[in-house]
């Protein structure tokens, strides 16, 4: 793999006009990655999902160079109907379109940061990989007091042109004071056997509101890793919803730093898996100052020989008195081959806090099925009704009604 990395790296920087210093940084990151390789189960954070093995078994040899000189045609049929929205379109990792047609132009700034790489503070080797190979990096700045009229949908599309490739993406967002953004990540893959490595960085200033919905619904054979770093100032709110279902393997990581008082973070997620899929959500909520709040709810429905992992950590600093932290994960195993692993973690250094977590996993409740069947439903119908209700609980947590309906329609959940 080493020669391949080196060769692809040389190819990719050839096309970029980078300063010597930036090249040095990229080289340093590349060397780090060559040194560490893909994360494996020996690392505590990857205990339940050995990415190195997963890539080996599903893809084999990866190549890292993407020729991004020519444009791809944007297929408008993938766009969401019936909802007016702003768009960013990625095709095979290349930004094809940035369109804020519904917004005031002077309130949103798009900054090309390709030439100033800011290193991601994340301990795993995938951040090094991302640093070494991302070639376009935009920062989207929402100016003070501006609240986007329409949601922004980011389309992550891949097509059959690529094969056994690693794609690295990077986006930075800054939400200035009193601003708000609704963001939907929509994955749409027709390619197979690629590894997507996505890094987002969010900076929320005072009173800013971020709503991020990640929807990975369509069946595909790709492997995905997505890392979200969220820094929150006073009074800011972040809401993250993850629908984890389509890809062969997917790991979403949310790292949320509650730096300002009264900041709050919400993380909700659904795993709906079948057929050998293996998905993971790992969340780290750092309560760094007093009077902060976090709430997490993760529900899984696992069929066939699928596997879901939830690792959630609530960290409470010694200054973070009056913290309120809550975390709940529930799983239904529909098949005897399915597997659910959880590691709900609390690390607490302050005494005046209210923190709790719960985790439960098991089969569908036979009594409930009996109850429904005695009222005339078939076994299949009762089962569907129960699963529907189980998942609806999480979808109902979505605070934006437009997007809630969109997601409900997508996964066919009825009220």
């Amino acid at each position, binding site marked *: 793999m080493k020669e391949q990395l080196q060769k692809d790296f040389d190819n990719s920087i050839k096309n970029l006009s980078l300063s010597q210093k930036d090249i040095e940084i990229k080289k340093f990151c590349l060397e780090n990655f060559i040194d560490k390789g893909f994360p494996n189960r020996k690392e505590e954070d990857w205990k339940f999902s050995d990415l190195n093995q997963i890539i080996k078994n599903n893809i084999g040899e990866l190549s890292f160079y993407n020729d991004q000189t020519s444009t791809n045609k944007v297929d408008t049929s993938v766009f969401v109907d019936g909802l007016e929205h702003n768009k960013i379109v990625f095709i095979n990792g290349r930004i094809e379109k940035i369109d804020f047609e519904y917004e005031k132009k002077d309130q949103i700034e798009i900054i090309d940061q390709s030439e100033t790489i800011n290193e991601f503070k994340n301990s795993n080797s995938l951040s090094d990989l991302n640093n070494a190979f991302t070639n376009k990096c935009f920062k989207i700045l929402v100016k003070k007091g501006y609240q986007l009229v329409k949601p922004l949908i980011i389309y992550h599309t891949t097509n059959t042109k690529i094969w056994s490739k690693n794609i690295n993406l990077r986006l930075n967002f800054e939400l200035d004071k009193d601003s708000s953004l609704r963001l939907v990540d929509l994955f749409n893959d027709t390619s197979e056997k690629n590894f997507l490595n996505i890094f987002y960085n969010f900076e929320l200033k005072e009173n800013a509101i971020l709503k991020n919905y990640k929807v990975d619904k369509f069946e595909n054979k790709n492997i995905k890793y997505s890392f979200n770093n969220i820094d929150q100032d006073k009074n800011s709110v972040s809401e993250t919803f993850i629908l984890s279902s389509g890809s062969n393997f997917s790991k979403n990581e949310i790292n949320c730093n509650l730096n300002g008082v009264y900041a709050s973070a919400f993380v909700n997620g659904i795993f709906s898996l079948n057929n050998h899929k293996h998905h993971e959500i790992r969340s780290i909520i750092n309560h760094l100052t007093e009077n902060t709040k976090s709430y997490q709810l993760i529900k899984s429905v696992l069929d066939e020989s699928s596997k879901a992992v939830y690792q959630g950590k609530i960290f409470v600093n010694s200054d973070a008195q009056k913290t309120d932290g809550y975390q709940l994960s529930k799983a239904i195993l529909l098949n005897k081959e399915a597997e659910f692993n*959880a590691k*709900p*973690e*609390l690390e607490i250094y302050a*005494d005046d806090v209210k*923190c709790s*977590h719960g985790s439960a*996993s*098991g*089969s569908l409740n036979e009594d409930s099925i009996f109850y429904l069947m005695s009222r005339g439903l078939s076994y299949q119908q009762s089962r569907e009704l129960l699963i529907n209700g189980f998942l609806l609980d999480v979808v109902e947590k979505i605070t934006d009604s437009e997007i809630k309906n969109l997601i409900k329609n997508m996964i066919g959940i009825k009220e």
Partner: protein
Amino acid sequence: MDNRQKEINNLKDYKYGFSTNIENIQAPKGLNEDVIKFISNIKKEPEWMLEFRLKAFERFKVLKEPDWQKPKFPKIDYQDLYYYSAPKSMKDKPKSLDELDPKLLETYKKLGIPLQEQARLNGIAVDAVFDSVSVATTFKDELTKQGIIFCPISEAIQNHPELVKKYLGSVIPTSDHFFATLNSAVFTDGSFVYIPEGVRCPMELSTYFRINASNTGQFERTLIIADKRSYVSYLEGCTAPMRDENQLHAANVELIALDDAEIKYSTVQNWYPGDKDGKGGIYNFVTKRGLCKGKNSKISWTQVETGSAITWKYPSCILKGDNSIGEFYSIAITNNHQKADTGTKMIHLGKNTKSKIISKGISAGSSDMTYRGLVDISSKAKNSTNYTQCDSLLMGNKCGAHTVPYIKNKNSESNIAHEATTSKISEEQLHYCQQRGLNPEEAVGLIVNGFCKEVLQQLPMEFAVEAQKLVGISLEGSVG
């Protein structure tokens, strides 16, 4: 005079902190094959036992000290320890208690464990371990009548080799983790219990561990076998003198329950925790593992952990037999600079297996407490259930309380429920108690005892009273 006063003051805090001035036989300092042969030789062990030790030592040489635990500690120099230390008077085993060195009798009397049987009214058989040897076992005759074997493990190796050979290392193999393997190589003494088929042990069996010599590691090994349809309740208590340096205690405990048998293992651990500034104290790195080998068997661990500078242990149950049950009840209290990383492992292999975990952690002062546990339901363990509850109580804002559960469910017909909370003693509760005439310390004591009650109830009567007092003492000075 000043020093004397200091000593007295210190003793008030940890009343078991005295040391006995007694002549010792020690193995040469350091760890090598010769020392292992020395231990084996002085214990007059058969050839197979020495092989067992050497095999473990071979394995130990390639292992690295683990470092994933939460409480970090300075590197232990394993060559700077004495691996065997015994009172000189024990060289030729005394035949009866009358021949026992009066100094030893005095020591145990001071610890509240009179070894003379007539002094015991409550009928608990005690095996007393002093540094590396077992000095006395009481009530032997009465137990022998029922066919129960309760003796030091070194005696069992000589008198019951068939049992020891069959079961020793069957739950904790010589190829296990770092400290367990070290123990397999150099263990010195400990208790051996065998309860024959259909026998319900008529009294509580108990071991009392005492570390006396300085610079000594204590490596005891306990093996308890409950044959079909038998029952035994076993207690373990421990103390050590106050010394400035840290001492290592790495014990292995193996429990084996055959068909329909039940083992109840209770620990009140009160090793010297170090002084107020965190100097000295015992490193308590213990491997405890129980195997529910037969169907309908049950193993229950109860622990009250108040001592030690660092406690690092996970009493586990391997639920292999169908319908077997594993239970774990724990109270861990840390104060001053104590650190604890403790919890349990429940490994479900058989059908219809059940496990229950109740863990209560209390941290005060500048201490740090971690609950770390594993619940693993394998794909064959149909219809299994687990219930876990771990609650932490924090006192003061310099301490930490952490929960790290690992939950693995590979079986759709099994259910796992886990809940954890972290909180502090509320002002209202304190106010309520004080209003009714309790002083703040008493009020905290009452509330903490209520918090721990679920676990304290699991202890045998005599222990429960002691443990309840211990909970109060450990938290003294942490209010206000």
